[in-house]
């Protein structure tokens, strides 16, 4: 139910309200799911999916039937893994072997896990994990192999991370940017790879995406890094630190100092550097989207990316991220979903709009000022390379390419000028000459030009009405003209 605050907000932001209404009224899923034929275990899986209730879920449910269940099960398997990894109440000795062996566990009928702490949000999923396993085993063997492979690599990556953290390597934080990206690779980059392999397997994406591994890596990295930036305060309160020391130590001595009001400028500079690191992935994400062939898959991939770039803008130069969770408004989210469920060009427009918003807030005295400007420019240039806003101009005027050509053109133009001059002179000359001859002949024949001239004057005078009444009698004096006619 919308609160009074929301009502007040949308009363002054009618455009956002319009987006919400449009999305609710007009959006139809590309593929409607028919759940009447689904087994009990699948229904239970779908229930868990809706319970985990992350932004992902809505788009999963609209996927093409060929991959919907596989992606949903893939998601639940990873969620199960994540729930075990995240739970600080499970001792390392129990946790590590499960994480390392999870790819085999998902093939063991009836496996469940009940040792999660009571506060763990997705505890029930692990308690009933047998339904996920049941459905996993019904998937196409090719899909099973992909999910198993990713689960194996992610489980081992998480186990390494948890072990390091537990052994107190630099007080549960991430040290270098390399470690940070490695962490994001395990929790998100691998998901990008797994999804891409599923899409390509079902012919929903260009197989070239599998060769350009940096593209699907960036898809995952971009989403994960944006989440880490946005959740800085929440994670800090939960005693988790994902911002790498290599970055924050350039700005403050202790991680906690980021949250002190007196360090506002330093904290902003630090967040800018984090945002820059994420922003450098943005063009790869657009490139990746160009390889998607099916609409529902496109929507599935594009919506989170659009949300991420908008979130990045909301966090940029915003000190509130150190005080609370900064979110994009529901109206903006609906607008983004409308624009992300059509075609790549509209998604590019979204990226361009938000990169320009970021660039307009860029602080000239930030240590990474020019680098951020470069990263924004790179996104724009990439968009221009796939959707050029102008064609190479046509050389209509035929500009000369060399000094010789210029001289030749100039000579031609001069020649043309003289030619025209000669032509006109010849015409005028001929007219003058012939008229002359005619006049001479007429004079010899007795023509009275004096009378003709006088009459012409009068008639002109009458025509313009400037001749006075005295002169009006002149035509009468012009009698001799009758003599003339006697000729």
């Amino acid at each position, binding site marked *: 139910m919308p609160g009074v605050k929301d009502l007040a907000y949308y009363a002054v932001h009618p455009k956002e309200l319009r987006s919400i209404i449009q999305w609710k009224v007009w959006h139809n899923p590309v593929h409607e799911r028919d759940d009447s034929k689904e087994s009990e275990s699948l229904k239970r899986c779908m229930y868990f999916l809706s319970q985990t209730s992350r932004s992902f879920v809505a788009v999963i449910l609209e996927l093409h039937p060929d991959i919907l269940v596989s992606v949903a099960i893939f998601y639940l398997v990873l969620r199960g893994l994540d729930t075990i990894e995240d739970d600080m109440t499970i001792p390392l000795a129990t946790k590590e072997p499960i994480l390392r062996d999870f790819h085999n566990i998902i093939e063991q009928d009836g496996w469940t896990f009940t040792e999660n702490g009571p506060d763990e949000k997705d505890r029930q999923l692990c308690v009933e994990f047998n339904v996920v396993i049941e459905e996993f085993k019904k998937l196409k063997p090719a899909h099973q192999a992909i999910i198993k492979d990713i689960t194996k690599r992610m489980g081992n990556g998480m186990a390494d991370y948890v072990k390091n953290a537990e052994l107190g390597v630099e007080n549960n934080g991430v040290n270098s940017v390399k470690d940070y990206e490695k962490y994001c690779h395990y929790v998100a980059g691998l998901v990008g790879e797994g999804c891409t392999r599923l899409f390509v397997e079902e012919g929903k994406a260009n197989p070239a995406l599998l060769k350009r591994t940096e593209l699907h890596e960036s898809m995952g990295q971009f989403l994960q890094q944006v989440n880490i930036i946005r959740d800085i305060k929440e994670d800090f309160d939960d005693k988790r630190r994902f911002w790498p020391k290599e970055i924050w130590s350039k700005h403050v001595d202790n991680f906690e100092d980021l949250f002190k009001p007196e360090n506002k400028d330093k904290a902003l500079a630090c967040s800018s550097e984090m945002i820059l690191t994420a922003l450098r992935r943005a063009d790869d994400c657009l490139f990746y989207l160009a390889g998607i062939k099916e609409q529902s898959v496109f929507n599935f991939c594009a919506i989170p990316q659009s949300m991420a770039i908008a979130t990045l803008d909301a966090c940029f130069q915003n000190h509130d991220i150190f005080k609370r969770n900064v979110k994009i408004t529901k109206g903006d989210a609906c607008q983004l979903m409308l624009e992300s469920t059509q075609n790549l060009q509209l998604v590019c427009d979204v990226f361009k709009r938000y990169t*320009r918003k970021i660039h307009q807030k*860029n602080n000239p005295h930030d240590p990474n*000022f020019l680098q951020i400007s470069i990263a*924004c420019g790179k996104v724009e240039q990439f968009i221009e390379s796939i959707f050029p806003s102008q064609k*190479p*101009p046509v050389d209509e005027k035929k*500009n000369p*390419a*060399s000094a010789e050509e*210029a001289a030749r053109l100039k000579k031609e133009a001069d020649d043309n000028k003289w030619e025209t001059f000669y032509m006109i002179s010849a015409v005028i000359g001929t007219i003058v000459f012939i008229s002359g001859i005619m006049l001479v002949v007429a004079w010899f024949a007795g023509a009275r030009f004096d009378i003709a001239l006088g009459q012409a004057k009068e008639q002109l005078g009458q025509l313009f009405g400037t001749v006075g009444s005295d002169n009006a009698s002149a035509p009468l004096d012009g009698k001799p003209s009758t003599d003339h006619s006697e000729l």
Partner: protein
Amino acid sequence: MAAKNPVPSLGHVTVVGGCGFLGSHIVSLIVKRHPSTRVSVLDLRTSSNRNASSQVSYHDGDITDLAFLKKLFADLKPDAIIHTASPHFHLPPAVHDKVNIEGTKNLLSAAQETGVKAFVYTSSASVIFGPETELVNATEEWPMITGDAQPEYYTTTKAYAETAVLEANRTPASFLTCAIRPAGIFGEGDVQLLPPMIGAFRKGQTKFQVGANDNLFDFTYVENVAFGHLLAVQALLHSHKILPTIPLDTERVDGEAFFITNGQPVYFWDFARAVWHECGDRRPLNKVWKLDKDFAFAVGALLENVFWVLGRTPNITRKQVRYSTFAKYHSIDKAKRRLGYHPLVQLDEGVRRGVRWLLENELKTAQKKDQ
């Protein structure tokens, strides 16, 4: 370093204009990257910007003197020529004709007669920039804007010289040429780009911005431009080695022009602000006045006329308004693919180096005056 990353010798390279801003950077980059390459520099005056390395020899001379060039090249017998000599932008048209067109043709014919293998010409990215169209990710396919359509006579002569160089390719068959088109060169020793920006800072003009600042612009650090030239020489010498085989059209370097930039287009005013920040400016972004583009254009037109009567140039001109509100950036994909080009120095590092050098240099000159 040379042992770790062996680079081929370029033989003997003559750098024409090697005491100029770009030329001197080309010389020092050859010395740095190709220690076994011999360099000879030809310039009108070789007293400034001299490189101390024993690899480099200096020769005074005028490229408008054909007989002299023939004799010099016959003596030096260079494998490659990098022609980077160009008169200052503001000089009268006759000088541009004389140096850019006639001088380049003299160099070509002297080189053709003396068995030079490779000839690289420093053109300019402006050869495709006219008064009407913005350059948005422009490629080498764009037509040149010259003659009456080109308001800058300097640019017209650069374009004509480029055509002359590219037409001379493979005549004789063993003579290979190409052209490098840099955009917005800046760095140590720069007189055209950074000094006016630093001047604007001193006049307190950092409080103004013309236009919305959404226009991307290419600026190129001088060492990267130098690097593009070296790669071009290297590529031409390689093509020369495989003669008479002609490389595939998609791989060819000879007879081609290449844009060389930092590959990092930034919003015009962002670059200016980065320069100002380096000078010590700390004005916050929200204290900047944003002037509407059309308004500024009208003010520029008005001031130009008023100042014309007074015989001076105003602080704001139509040309400046145009330059600061137009998009002007290029695609360097061709140079990346065919030359293997990539910028050696990032844009922000380049700004830091360029501005610091200029400020230090100013101090030194001031101290000399005091003494």
